[in-house]
């Protein structure tokens, strides 16, 4: 049962990229920060949209994975990648219509936003509250 929702409010984003840092350091492995799962992208001068996985209802990444490595976590509502089942075939990276399944070259693995298992670090660190993890029920 989903109790929270991750909300992105682009009009509040100032493109400071604190979310990127928070994400990369949260996903540190072997003393090496991971690739950020969230990117504030400028769509016009000084106007930003923080782009992260949309956790689609009918996700193309889950459909494209031939090894069932991607699965929805019913408690958080996030589509999570089981790295143990992943063989890095890049099907999800190519299939995601929003380009939100990413390749982490440093750790040689595929990564995507999993909402940090129910407490996204980016939302905690966002100084303007453009990213919020809101209680819905």
């Amino acid at each position: 049962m989903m109790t929270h929702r991750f909300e992105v409010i682009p009009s509040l984003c100032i493109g400071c990229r604190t979310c990127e840092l928070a994400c990369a350091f949260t996903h540190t492995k072997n003393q090496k920060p991971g690739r950020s799962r969230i990117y504030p992208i400028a769509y016009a001068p000084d106007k930003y949209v923080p782009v992260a996985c949309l956790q689609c209802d009918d996700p193309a990444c889950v459909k494209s994975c031939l090894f069932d490595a991607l699965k929805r976590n019913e408690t958080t509502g996030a589509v999570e990648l089981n790295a143990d089942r992943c063989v890095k075939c890049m099907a999800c990276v190519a299939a995601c219509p929003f380009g939100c399944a990413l390749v982490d070259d440093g750790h040689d693995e595929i990564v995507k936003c999993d909402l940090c298992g129910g407490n996204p670090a980016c939302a905690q660190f966002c100084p303007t509250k453009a990213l919020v993890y809101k209680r819905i029920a």
Partner: protein
Amino acid sequence: MSVLRREGIDVPVLCHHEAIEPCGSCRLCTVEITKDGWGGWKRHVTSCLYPAEEGLVVVTHSPELIEIRRNILDLYLARCPQSEVIQKMAEEYGLYKTSYETIPDGDNCIMCYACTRICEVLGKSAISAVMRGHKKVIAPPFGEQPPDCIGCLSCAHICPTDVIAWKDDDGCRTIWNKPFELISCSRCGKKTITREFADYLIGKRNLPRDYFTVCDDCKRQDLALKMGALVDRAKEVAI
């Protein structure tokens, strides 16, 4: 094996991967089992294949088991002298040099069948073991370019000893001597997956073809533009 992993107990293994069914070919995950009613009898089994049950007593590291693993690694070291994974594992068990004669032109393959099994899961089975005995190798049918291979690199990535050679060169991927054309992003030209793999996914999982024409970077940019347009429109309406 899954129970041991869940409990954080380390057992060495080469041939195991969550995406494929266990087959117990590398023998390194051998453990000692016994049970109350067995009257002191013990068995050595591969932990990947043996189902866990209530009351089973499992020993993962004992002098006897370490000796068994040392012997297995000794043989692997003779077969795959160049493999770093095997060397590292052998060093952990105090083996720096094999006591057997090494194969001079060995290819580092340990015959674990992870590649053929993953190809089977994928639904292609493009490669398999050919020949018998010491001549046995993993190869495409008749040693030719495998007709069913779609160039997804699953076999190369799953291989514990990184034997399967492949290369991406100027938009062309070669694996098992078969050349594949990589899809170029229609905007920035970044190379994604092979055309054959995309076609296979489109057919098998009913995905729209236009998902595969653009690379992930350009798709993120698109999403930002679309969301930005919505934000601007919402602002106009509010004013």
